[in-house]
């Protein structure tokens, strides 16, 4: 079996990469170990409306709910609201992540990519120190898939990169360990995604309540693995729900465990090899959101691959424009937010309370982590010293 490109993983990163590579003429195979794309869902399912700019999704079937904004609750309950200018304007969506992933995969298939389900990559093939394919397993049988370019879009596990000799292992300090219920029969404001902070609530992370509809919400927790204990996310989430009567009366329709890298992006290009999405740690270290970065990086990866296949050159130099373009766009934001993550992790609950209190009535011009950081600096010039490296990064 020989293809121009083999993509491992049919998540957003893999499907978008495959789509743009196939559109520029490459012969692409996606392999996915699951038996259904996007299932089971391992996600809070929140995304900014900016996803519409990418034109990779058709129709509206993947949207469960339109959001007006987000609310952040400090440990003592003070609320900071980031909302659209006008009530009724939408700023983001809560997704049906399974349909979302399937729509992205459909886009890749329509562009000409092939998709093989129930097929797990178990190793990379190598020749003269360069990867030239993957060893795959389907229904107990192993076989080789040769390719000029291998794309590791295999999510948080990032085994493709590891097998190829890259350092993809995460430090517990750079991983959020999560559980989430989808609760039915709950009460809340359907227009807002809520975030709850505090060392007692979620050490090094937060609890989220993302409404999927009128009386149904994703209620989840992420804890920094270095601050966690075995089973702690589940215990603390149950405790949180117990102390919120409006959630306590709900019944779960779904329960999931998840892992989110909150690291700085890592090396993502070698000869004949690219990493995209969670595999390359392309996740916002403050929010843990990775869908948008996966789509953005997937588009650049796919176009870079298309050029490489056109010129029949697959060395690192040919593929490097992928990383260079990311450095000038997505990575600036991710690196800046990694610095913010470290500052926030060092804050005591009482500092968070003080900051939230000072932003209670602040009007945000935009719903983004950047506008939050800008507001903090305005209100607390002393923070500027700590944030200096970060401001430099964002000005570039």
């Amino acid at each position, binding site marked *: 079996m020989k293809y121009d490109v083999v993509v491992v993983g049919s998540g957003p990163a893999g499907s978008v990469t495959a789509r743009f590579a196939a559109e520029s003429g490459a012969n692409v195979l996606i392999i996915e170990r699951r038996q259904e794309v996007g299932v089971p869902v391992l996600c809070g399912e929140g995304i900014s409306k900016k996803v519409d700019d990418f034109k990779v999704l058709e129709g509206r079937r993947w949207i469960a709910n339109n959001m007006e904004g987000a609310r952040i609750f400090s440990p003592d309950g003070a609320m900071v609201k980031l909302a659209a200018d006008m009530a009724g304007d939408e700023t983001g969506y809560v997704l049906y992540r399974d349909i979302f992933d399937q729509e992205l995969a459909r886009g890749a298939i329509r562009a000409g990519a092939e998709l093989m389900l129930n097929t797990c990559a178990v190793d990379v093939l190598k020749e003269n120190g360069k990867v030239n394919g993957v060893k795959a397993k389907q229904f107990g049988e192993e076989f080789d898939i040769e390719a000029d370019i291998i794309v590791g879009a295999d999510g*948080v*596990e990032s085994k493709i990169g590891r097998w190829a000799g890259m350092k993809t292992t995460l430090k517990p300090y750079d*991983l959020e360990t999560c559980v989430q219920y989808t609760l039915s029969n709950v009460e809340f404001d359907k227009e807002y995604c809520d975030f709850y902070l505090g060392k007692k609530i979620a050490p090094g992370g937060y609890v989220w309540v993302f409404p999927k509809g009128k009386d149904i919400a994703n209620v989840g927790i992420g804890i920094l*693995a270095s601050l966690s204990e075995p*089973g702690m996310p*589940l215990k603390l989430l149950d405790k949180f729900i117990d102390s919120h009567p409006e959630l306590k009366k709900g019944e779960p329709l779904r329960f999931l465990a*998840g892992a989110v890298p909150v690291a700085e992006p890592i090396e993502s290009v070698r000869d004949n090899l690219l990493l995209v999405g969670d595999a390359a740690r392309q996740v916002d270290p403050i929010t843990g959101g990775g869908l948008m970065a996966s789509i953005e990086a997937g588009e650049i990866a796919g176009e870079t691959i298309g050029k490489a296949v056109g010129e029949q050159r697959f060395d690192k130099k040919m593929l490097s424009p992928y990383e260079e373009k990311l450095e000038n766009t997505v990575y600036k934001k991710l690196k800046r937010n990694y610095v913010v993550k470290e500052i926030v992790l060092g804050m005591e609950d009482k500092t968070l309370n003080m900051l939230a209190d000072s932003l209670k009535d602040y009007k945000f011009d935009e719903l983004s982590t950047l506008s939050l950081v800008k507001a903090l600096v305005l209100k607390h010039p002393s923070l500027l010293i700590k944030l200096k490296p970060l401001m430099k990064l964002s000005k570039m």
Partner: protein
Amino acid sequence: MGKPKALVDKGKCLACGGCISVCPQDAITMCSSKAIVSKENCIDCGICIQTCPVGAISNEVY
């Protein structure tokens, strides 16, 4: 007596992949939606045990 090694309780594992991403020995793989520890490679550092959100990993003496 053998050395202690990490062991995944298959009944509890929800296949989040967190343990795999932090294992410094690349000793864990996902097999049919369950994490499995390779005894040969595990050095019992305990990182995966601490990471598991549902407490599905313990260390056992083989």
